[in-house]
């Protein structure tokens, strides 16, 4: 270091300051920190500790000149006797006590070591340990350069961490959006499937079956409400309009009960079919349904027969 002149010192400072240009990712900052600490500033061993987001401990994350598995993996930054964030530790083998932080195995004959806090304001982001074995001590000017390095690393690290955090949030947001889109897509697919199913059910609930080319059979089964009665009307009249049958058999064998409104609608449907030129034959009317229809006091001008067989026979006769 005795040969290091002011111009070279400034050049080294420039190179150290350039770390702030490397806002890529945490790994790059770690590599650069250790590269500058060793190749540029001459440490034979360098270990970088960083705080994790989950706790306040310092975790060894990268090392040069020694395997990471050989150094203390975790350091507690504040102990009753030492606060690693408070000051730069300068130590040489001349001290009567060992380096206050047990980073390396005790048998390592370190000649001099530095412990440099990497902090922004009062928050400790990390801690850099550097050691030499071939020389007796770090030159005081180099100690200052390490301090500048730590300062540059801290500002770069802070920005990089914030950037990584923002990127992480963006990723999470993008993932949430994707999940939402997938959920919406699934809902839409379910809706489409349900619509198709409903359509199928509706189609099945009002089957209109051609009997030969002159008659249609509309078998009604189950409970009929106003909505279904409307559908029966629409479907049946559409079929009559398209196929022009002479006769439509409305088979009510499967209808156990009918409310007056619905009965009225069905009678209206039958009359409408007549207007379209088709005779309506109602069959299979149960006594209870017959009571409802009679109670309507409506003009019952439709043909009724007892069962489907009779209705078929009648329909064939009218061909």
């Amino acid at each position, binding site marked *: *270091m*005795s*040969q*290091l002149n002011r*111009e*070279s*010192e*400034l*050049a*080294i400072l*420039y*190179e150290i300051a*350039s770390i702030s*240009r*490397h806002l890529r990712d945490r790994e790059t900052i770690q590599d650069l920190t250790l*590269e500058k600490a*060793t*190749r*540029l*500033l*001459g*440490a*034979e*061993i360098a270990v970088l500790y960083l705080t994790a987001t989950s706790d306040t401990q310092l975790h060894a994350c990268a*090392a*040069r*000149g*020694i*395997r990471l598995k*050989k150094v203390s993996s975790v350091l507690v930054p504040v102990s009753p006797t030492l606060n690693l964030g408070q000051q730069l530790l300068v130590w040489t083998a001349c001290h009567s006590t060992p380096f206050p932080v047990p980073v390396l*195995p005790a*048998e*390592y*004959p370190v000649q001099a070591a530095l412990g440099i806090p990497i902090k922004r304001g009062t928050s400790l982001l990390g801690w850099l340990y550097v050691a*030499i*074995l*071939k*020389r007796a001590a770090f*030159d005081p000017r*180099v100690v200052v*350069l390490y301090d500048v390095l730590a300062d540059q690393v801290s500002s770069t690290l802070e920005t990089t961490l914030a950037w990584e955090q923002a990127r992480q949030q963006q990723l999470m947001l993008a993932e949430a959006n994707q999940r939402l889109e997938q959920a919406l897509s699934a809902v839409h697919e379910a809706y489409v499937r349900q619509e198709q199913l409903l359509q199928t059910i509706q189609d099945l609930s009002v089957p209109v079956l051609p009997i030969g080319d002159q008659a249609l059979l509309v078998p009604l089964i189950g409970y009929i409400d106003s909505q279904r009665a409307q559908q029966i009307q629409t479907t049946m009249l559409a079929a009559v309009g398209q196929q022009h049958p002479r006769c439509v058999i409305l088979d009510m064998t499967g209808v156990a009960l009918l409310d007056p409104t619905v009965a009225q609608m069905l009678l209206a449907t039958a009359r409408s079919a007549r207007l379209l030129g088709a005779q309506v034959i109602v069959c299979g009317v149960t006594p209870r349904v017959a009571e409802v229809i009679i109670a309507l006091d409506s003009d019952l001008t439709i043909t009724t027969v007892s069962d489907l067989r009779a209705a078929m026979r009648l329909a064939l006769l009218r061909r």
Partner: protein
Amino acid sequence: MTILAGSGSSQHTDAYQAGQEAAAGALAALASHTPQLVIVFTTEHYDHATALQGIRASTGTVPLIGCCTGGLITAQGILERGVAALALCGDDLEVALALEPDLSTRPAQAAQSVAEQLEDYLAPLSSPRHSTALIFTDGLTGALAMDTAIHHVATIFGPFCPLIGGAAGDNLQYHQTSLFVNERILGDSIALALLTTAAPIGIGVRHGWQPIGQPCVITRSMANVIYELDGRPALEVYRSLFPHSELTLENFREFTRYHPIGFPQATGEFLVRLPMQANADGSIVCVGMLPEYAVMYIMQGDPVSLLTAAEAAAQQAMTALQGVPVAAAIVIDCVTRPPLLGTRTADEIDHIRAIVGVETPIIGMYSFGEIAADTGPVCFHNKTVVVGVIGKH
């Protein structure tokens, strides 16, 4: 215990004969002792498999490590063509070897793998013995990957196992090169020999280049390519620093041998990088990784500064032995230093030998990059001389 060493070389045109003669010369100094390691350097003129057969005809299955080089440094002088060998033995000397391919495509994994194969052989810190690793890499395909590989090996071996070695090459034809471990011969690979002994080992590293002129800032670069200096195309700026020279894309490589670039380091030494190639887009390709957004200088050297550096490297290595006599010396010298040294090329080796001992068995290579630690961590160097000495006891 005493470490014994012997070196030999041959310029025989027949590869087998050259290998056999070099090995015989190395073994002769060991008398009846069995070698425990043979270090072999060759030049591109030989069929390496045949040369190794010749060597192993003499040494048998003794562990062997080495590579093809840009030239040989031997007790017989500098050889542009030949085979050189250094044999080592010692009661407490232990040797383990490993070779791993794919240096250029997966440098971190290749380096980790090759080092982990030897990790269990490292001397424990509590032991009076210590380990040193010889490291050789492909300097033609792996120049970009070298820094990555070296730092991974150094991290696994730790600071108590110094690395010394270099990048294999050819006679500046930049075609292909080979690494040897025992009978295996591979290109694009990394080879390690772990030596463990109680004998001290000293290493010295110097280049002798000094900065000239005003500094420039690398404002745009990637890996080993400089795109912009001071915000302008790199080649344009480099050219402007030599207004009286006719610097073209064609003569760029030859010109930059005399004018590498350097980066100030806190240890006081400059990290030197050799610009190898200029591209039509104005970019400059260097040997080895470049620090981004760093201040660089054009470096200048002359025969005197390079010779002084070689002496300093040898002295540094010898100082580390603390008075222990030298058993053997290994020299890793950049292949682009002789063009500047010119007629004084041989002086560089003579100066080194004068310090490590002219009778000391010696082997050396002209390399495409040098690997060693100065006072700081191990680095990949350019245009540098590395001297390693092994103590006798």
